[in-house]
């Protein structure tokens, strides 16, 4: 009892895992586990709000499915960004650099050709 008194003001360590939260929502936890999870969540506004919201979902089984589909979308979104950037970064446009170089050489050659021919005439 004396030790438990101190429990009131202590900050519980760790956060419940997603699996634990889902089990809690499905009422699959033992009384002690339930209490432990609630003790971890009660001081954390984010988790406390989330648990309150999740309890409003009528069919518990759907939650896992919703989370999976949200995660799939997220993965797609974060993966796409990388490939787009990689395309931009890793494929330098060599043909463009090459054409510019050829063009510069032609310009220099044409200049030299005309410059020389006017020198000869003089």
């Amino acid at each position, binding site marked *: 009892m004396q030790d438990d008194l*101190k429990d009131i003001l202590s900050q519980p360590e760790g956060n419940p895992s997603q699996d634990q939260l889902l089990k809690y929502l499905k009422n699959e936890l033992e009384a002690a586990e339930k*209490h432990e999870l*609630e003790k971890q969540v009660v001081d954390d506004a984010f988790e406390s709000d989330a648990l*309150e919201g999740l309890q409003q979902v009528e069919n518990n089984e759907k939650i896992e499915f919703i*989370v999976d589909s949200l995660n799939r979308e997220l993965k797609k979104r974060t993966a796409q960004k990388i490939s787009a950037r990689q395309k931009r970064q890793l494929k330098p446009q060599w043909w463009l650099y090459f054409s510019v170089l050829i063009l510069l050489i032609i310009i220099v050659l044409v200049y030299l050709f005309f410059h020389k021919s006017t020198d000869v005439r003089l």
Partner: protein
Amino acid sequence: MSKELYKDINDGELLQRFWQTQNNEWLGILLQRYTLLLFGVCMKYLKNENDAQDCVQQIFLKVIQEVSKYKIDYFKSWLYMVAKNQCLTLLRDKKGKIPVELTETNGRFVYEEQKQEEQPVITDDLLKQALSGLNEEQYKCVTLFYLQKNSYQRISEVTGYPILKVKSYIQNGKRNLRLIIEKKIKETDSGNAR
């Protein structure tokens, strides 16, 4: 699978890796940890599964687009604030003008982990005195929860209070308990000083 692979890396380190590499995949791994919680928060505010799912997607997008603009010390608190603001914005757009505090989304802010202040020594006698200073509902819920280790549901059955009330009595009770203790410590300190 990635969730399992990176479970030993904490949020701060994942964020650091994102900042160093600018690779959104790190952000994806980090956000995945909070998908369930984000969906829960959106459900709490929007009370509709489809709206909540859309809102979570918008939060993801917002984080991906804006995370680089902020200096974030504690990702979880920052994400919670982004989520709440997004829900409140949607509610405001839906229902017209509801007074909503959105100032924190404007500008650059620094989010810091709540620092544990140095706690004064709290004796059991002081705690007992403070507990007796709580109102009846809070006293009942706090003792049934922390001392007798009951779940919300059991407390609700025993006391007849709805589960949501039980939770708020525990949260408010704990906050009041801290206030009462602080007050008593100050009183003792000023008494000793004299």
